[in-house]
Structure formats: structure tokens, C-alpha cells
């Protein structure tokens, strides 16, 4: 059994023993919450989880091998807002234990070898800069090279402002690689978790052969606040939640966390990479 950290990494965990569910206000014993995959047993509220915890839930035991772990961000714009970008990255590293907002590597899911990329919202809001772009692109390129499916779990506020237009261009870079998977008949499964927004949603996250989402995950192109301010009208109930996006036809299923792995495994088993055509006319 794993222990909870004495000081929690999630803002939703005010005490080291108990957590109040933000949805139903139930006081939950942390050990019980972890055993339940960080889902409230009473109301099914899905707490945010970090990339490493997510990999543990999805990859077959002991199969995950991290790649490109040593890629780190440059500071191409010498960006300074309330603090310099370099300091912001350093702080995020300490907070999340990751080197940037995505962890990538090879793994098996339900016995199927895959390239796996999992975003971490704890690292500057899961924002996509050059490192995220480079790591996911490399994962897609490895998937193409060894004809293995690509599975990407998104959790992101969008493109990283501190890298300016370079961050924006990562959308095109990743999609260039992902698009080649489609041409080669290699499956790509996209999983949207709370929250998936902005440039991540408006690029690779929306275009899986299969798109799954966790219950009530916030999924939207522009933040509800932006929409609210721009339009000045009241938004429909459940606006930009996974169930709303499902109803409007942009995702295949809303899948509770407890069933996510088996569901991904189902699609991986059904959608096999197209065999290479050797051109022998057989």
C-alpha cells in the first residue's frame, strides 16, 4: 500500500488525512480515496491526478519505460512576467517532480505495446511549449517507426504563453506527426481529462481515431470565463463538460476512471496497426 504525501501536491487535499470532496462535500479518508483511484466513492467526482499516477493506472505493471526524460525547456523569448520563465519552470519541476508538462515513453496496455504520452496539469497548468511539442512528436514518430499505437492522455490549459508563437506552432508540429499515423493505418487514442482546453484541444487531443473523456472533465476551446466575458450571456448548464461535448458529437465515450484502462485495451485490441504493404502483390 502506498502512503499519501504528508503535504499533498493537490490543492484539493487540505489535510494529510482527510479530503473534502469539492462536489458533494463529503469528508473522505485519503487512503480510501487513493485506493479508489482518486474518485469520490460517494459522488464519483474525479480528482485531478498527476502524470505518474496516471501511468500507474494505465500501463501494465512494470512495462513503462520513460523516453526523452532529459528534454528541458529553453527560454527563447527571455520571458519575464511576475517572475522569469526559467524560475517558473524550476518551481514547476519541484512541484510536480517532472521536467515538463508531459511524460512520454513505451508501455504495454492490456498486453498491447504502445507509445504513451501523459500530460501533467501540475506543471504550469499542463501548458504546451516546445518540450511538450517535441516529446509528443517524438512519441508519434516512434509509434510510426515501430508501428505501435499512440495513446495520449491530455490535461492542459493550452499553449504556454511564455514561449509565444513558438508554443502555438507546436500544434502544427504534433499534428504533422499524428497525421502520418493516420495515413499509415496506426491507431491513435486520445483521452481527455480535466481540463483539456485551448491549443491542446484544438490540435492533437480532438483528432484521435478514438476520443475518450473522464466524467465531468472540463473540455472547451476557450475558457468559460473568456466566453462569458466576450458574449455576456448566460451559458447553458453543464457547458463544456465531457457529457456536453459527448452530446454534441465530439467524443466517443465518457469513461469512468475505473474502466478507462480496460476500455483503452478494448480499442487497442480491435484496432490493429495495418500490416506493412511490402508491394509484392500478395
Amino acid at each position: 500500500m502506498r502512503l499519501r504525501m504528508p503535504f499533498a501536491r493537490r490543492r484539493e487535499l487540505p489535510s494529510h488525512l482527510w479530503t473534502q470532496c469539492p462536489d458533494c462535500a463529503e469528508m473522505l479518508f485519503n487512503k480510501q480515496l487513493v485506493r479508489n483511484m482518486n474518485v469520490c466513492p460517494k459522488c464519483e467526482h474525479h480528482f485531478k491526478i498527476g502524470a505518474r499516477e496516471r501511468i500507474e493506472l494505465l500501463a501494465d505493471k512494470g512495462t513503462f519505460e520513460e523516453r526523452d526524460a532529459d528534454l528541458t525547456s529553453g527560454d527563447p523569448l527571455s520571458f519575464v512576467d511576475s517572475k522569469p520563465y526559467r524560475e517558473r519552470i524550476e518551481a514547476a519541476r519541484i512541484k510536480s517532480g517532472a521536467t515538463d508538462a508531459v511524460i512520454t515513453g513505451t508501455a504495454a496496455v492490456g498486453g498491447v505495446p504502445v507509445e504513451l504520452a501523459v500530460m501533467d496539469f501540475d506543471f504550469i497548468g499542463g501548458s504546451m511549449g516546445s518540450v511538450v511539442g517535441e516529446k509528443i512528436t517524438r512519441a508519434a514518430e516512434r509509434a510510426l517507426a515501430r508501428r505501435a499505437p499512440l495513446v495520449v492522455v491530455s490535461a492542459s490549459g493550452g499553449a504556454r504563453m511564455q514561449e509565444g508563437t513558438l508554443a502555438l506552432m507546436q500544434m502544427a508540429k504534433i499534428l504533422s506527426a499524428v497525421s502520418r499515423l493516420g495515413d499509415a493505418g496506426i491507431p491513435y487514442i486520445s483521452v481527455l481529462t480535466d481540463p483539456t482546453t485551448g491549443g491542446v484541444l484544438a490540435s492533437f487531443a480532438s483528432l484521435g481515431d478514438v476520443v475518450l473523456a473522464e466524467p465531468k472533465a472540463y473540455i472547451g476551446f476557450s475558457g468559460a470565463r473568456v466566453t462569458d466575458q466576450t458574449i455576456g450571456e448566460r451559458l447553458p448548464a453543464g457547458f463544456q463538460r465531457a457529457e456536453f461535448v459527448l452530446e454534441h458529437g465530439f467524443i466517443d465515450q465518457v469513461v469512468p476512471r475505473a474502466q478507462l484502462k480496460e476500455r483503452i485495451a478494448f480499442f487497442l485490441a480491435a484496432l490493429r496497426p495495418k500490416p506493412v504493404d511490402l508491394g509484392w502483390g500478395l
Partner: protein
Amino acid sequence: MRDPLAALREIATLGGRSPSEGNGHLVAGDELITDTAALGSARISAWEAVKLARELHRPHSIEIIERVFTRFQEMHGDRLFRDDPAIVGGIAELAGRPVVVVGQQKGASTEENIQRNFGMPHPEGYRKAIRLYRLAERFQLPLVTLIDTPGAFPGPEAEERGQAEAIAKSIEVMTGLRTPIVAVVLGEGGSGGALALGVADVVLSLQNAIYSVISPEGAAAILWRTAGEAERAARSLRLAGPDLLELRIVDGLIPEPPAGAHTDHDRTAANIKAAIAPQLERLARKATAELLAERYERFRRIGVVVEPAGEPVAPRRPWWKKVLGR
């Protein structure tokens, strides 16, 4: 502020992937600015560029299309929902040869802006664009895109109809489109809504246009908690034409008349025509496989990452995770 090129070079020598090999692929004459040193004192501040890029009387897509091309026939609708007036497109001729042209359309008056939704497309606008991209591919016509939008429309109906999916699809289709593409940033290149028209073999920008991940006002509101810092945000985001050239996001700048494009639409259009015609001619000679490989590489190399040479370093874990054996 430090010279970004110096920063890029420094990172490249750290053993990381070189961010860019420059614009070696682009053969340009006098019609393009490919070195910011050539701008000299004509290089204006980021905020001045923001104001010029948004100037109400700046030439917008239709004004440019009418002057650069001949016999433009507009084509309407996405065949799924409706015609989005914020994106215009169709077939026109350049030097007697047909091309497909698609652009975002702002208005030159408040009334026209309301009709054009201030150049902010809905999903159906992007789906119309995708339809025209496919048309270009099917009939082997080159594609010219014109970028001029504050961003994709952020309203609830746009969300309901899949704004994110429409933009993503538009980007994806461009990455693999089997015909030459030249994109020109005319005014405002607002985030993903602009990039949906921006994946091209050659990406050019008018000298005083801007292209950014977020509006300066938006960045200021988030990073400095006040929209009043927009000027500072504009500077930090490095969104003006010369910055984009230095960061290799655009391949060349198209000169504007001295007081800005809004002062002389004819001259601006003539400059755009002089800039894109030789590029289309050059791209037309390439085999499709080569074109697609170079387009992939063009976007593949954008970004700055530091990758230590030699043995990969394990990610550092916080001490408390080590203590707890996690």
C-alpha cells in the same frame, strides 16, 4: 532584452537540436525582407505593430484578393451548416493560372465588422476552408491563404459546433495537403484560429503584421492581472513581424508602404503579388513527396529544447518522494 538569436545559438550549442537552420530553403529577391538588419530604423515597436495590424482601414482579404489575383469567383458554404462570412475563399487567377485562395475577412466599418463577426470564424468557417483545401488538392491547384483574425470566435454556439475540432482538422489537413501552399499574415494572426490557415510550405508576413499565441490584452490579464499591461505583454510575446522572422516562424517579410499598409492598398497588394508569385512558381516545380517532406521538416524544427548530450539524465524526484519511496 537579449537578442533571441543569441539565445537560440546558445541553446543550439548546448547540444540540443538546432532550432532552425535559417531560411536556406527560401530563395528570395528584393521582394522579401529575410534579414531584420535590413529594416534598420524602420523597425517599429511591438505595440505600434499591434495598432497597425488592427488598423480599421488596413487592406483585408477581399481587398488583397481583388488586387493580387484576377477573375476571383467566391465560393460559399461548408456543405454542413452554413456560410461563414468571416472566412472567404474561392478560385482566382494569378498570371493566368487558377489558384485556390482562402482568407479570414474583417470589415472596414463597424457595420461590416458585425456582418463579418470581426473576422472571428465559427467552426463552419474552418470547415469551408477545409473544403476548399481539398478542392485545391483534387485539381492540383496551388493554395494561397491569407491570415487576418483576432482569433476563432469563442462563443457558446462555436463550442457546441466543435470549434476545437474544426481548427485541429484544418491544421491537420494542411500538414498533408498534396499541393503547394503559401500563407501570408496580412494583419492579426490570432492564435489557433489563425494557425488553422497557417500550415504552409512558405509562410510570409506583411512587415507590420503580428502573429501570437494570445492577444497582448489576454496575456496581460492573465500574467499581470490587468489588461493595462498589454503594451508590455506585446513586447514580451515577440509577436511583431521582425520577431517572427528572427524566430523563424515566418520565412520572409513583405514590405509595406512607409506609413503602413492602410495608406496604400494598391502598393501593398503589388508587394504581396511580387512576393508570392515566385514562391508559387518555385514550389510548383517540386515533386509532391519532396514538398510534403519539406513542409513536415519546416514545422518539425520549430521550438527550442535543451537536450544534454551523452547519457540521458533521470528525471529529478522531489526529496519527499524519495523519502517516502514513491
